[in-house]
């Protein structure tokens, strides 16, 4: 019996590695909203020498990292309702101003989690559509309709191996044609007018392996395809 794990298990990126990859694409000076959960990790990996300003929907620009346990202020939290800090140069504002930033196209980028992304950029990330679920949408629909660039950070497949990159979303939509780039544990995939385009793979992962786990046609658009 082999002790080697399957190549994909060995080679796929950790959450931190996906976050670090997504952070590389954020330009210096950007105003950015990071979705609750995995995308929040991106803040820890902003490359040295770049300054970005994080927006949180509940009324803070210039969000900093979590405070020390003895410095928690219950009135200083993020959209995930977790204690945060305010960086030098931060500002507070009310909800209508916060969403004017979102809906008025003032934020450069948001990176969100996903349940499904379709080949035309449709995003589903707010509801399973199950009858017994408690409906809750938060700011997701506002972000995808108003922020200039919407990217997704997610695992390529669900825990049971079902692809999240699909021809057409089966879950209720958050927005139509909104996603431009997807960072996963296997690859970076762009949404183009011709559908999904593979931009790069994690080291050791092949085009065929990514394509086999993508439930829609995938075009190889890497600058340096597999040798």
């Amino acid at each position, binding site marked *: 019996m082999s002790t080697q794990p399957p190549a994909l298990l060995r080679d796929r990126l950790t959450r931190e590695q996906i976050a670090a990859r997504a952070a590389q694409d954020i330009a210096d000076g950007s105003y950015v909203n990071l979705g609750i959960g995995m995308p929040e990790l991106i803040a820890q990996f902003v490359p040295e020498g770049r300054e970005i300003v994080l927006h*949180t*929907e*509940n*009324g*803070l620009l210039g969000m900093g990292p979590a405070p020390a346990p003895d410095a928690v*202020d*219950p*009135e*200083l*939290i993020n959209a995930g*309702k977790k204690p945060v800090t*305010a960086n030098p140069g931060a500002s*507070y*504002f*009310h*909800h*209508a101003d*916060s*969403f004017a930033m*979102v*809906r008025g196209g003032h934020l450069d980028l948001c990176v969100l989690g996903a349940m499904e992304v379709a080949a035309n950029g449709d995003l589903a990330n707010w509801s399973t559509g199950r009858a*017994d679920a*408690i*409906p*809750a*949408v*938060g*700011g*997701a*629909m*506002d972000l995808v*309709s*108003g922020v200039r660039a919407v990217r997704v950070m997610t695992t390529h497949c669900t825990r049971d191996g079902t692809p999240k990159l699909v021809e057409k979303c089966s879950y*209720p*939509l*958050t*927005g*139509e044609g909104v996603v431009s780039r997807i960072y996963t544990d296997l690859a970076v995939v762009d949404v183009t007018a011709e559908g999904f385009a593979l931009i790069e793979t994690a080291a050791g992962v092949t085009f065929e392996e990514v394509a086999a786990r993508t439930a829609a046609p995938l075009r190889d658009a890497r600058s340096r395809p597999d040798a």
Partner: protein
Amino acid sequence: MIDKRVASAAEAVADIADGATVMIGGFGEAGSPIELVHALIDHGASELTVISNNAGNGQVGLAALIRCGRVAKIVGSYPRSSNSTVFADVYRAGRIELELVPQGTLAERIRAGGAGIPAFYTPTAAGTELADGKEQREFGGRPHLLEHALTADWALVKAHAADWHGNLRFNKTARNFGPIMAMAASTTVVQASSVDAPGSLDPETVVTPGIFVNRVVHVADPAQEFDLVAQGAHYP
């Protein structure tokens, strides 16, 4: 002479009638006007429509108001909570109505209500199931939804510092919905940690001008919903 001070939270909410629409400030546990909400529970008004981003935390504040059966309908964006099953239980039992609104649309509907704008178009939620039943129109080749303003009979708001005229300052992210709810309600009731004479607040730092505020209650050391939830507190 203008003096909007009211002696107690109980007095400030004593004339909220059954069936009233009440905006309640707060996002998560920050900015929750918990003393005012508890006074509303004691007061006993029922069949309320509550406009609030969330549906309460733990077993206190808005969650307690719902558990006590006082709320017929919630208008909000995110009624799910990791620390409370109160809303979920009542919702699954079919004992509360929910109008789910994207958070930015909720904020703008409230702002519009306060600014005398009856409705507006937004691209948010176009093409989703939250667009069902809404009038749609294209601007610049992009579909937009017609969204109607929200107003209320009452707003319950937590501020940090107030003066007798109702000028307000807030604390950090506890500001959230407070300023816009104050604008959109017929009667806005504010609890503030300090309430001082006019002139005590630098006009340059006033966030909500007193014209939007009707009653001010001094709650010197307000409970933090965050702490009450952590302690497992139960109201009443």
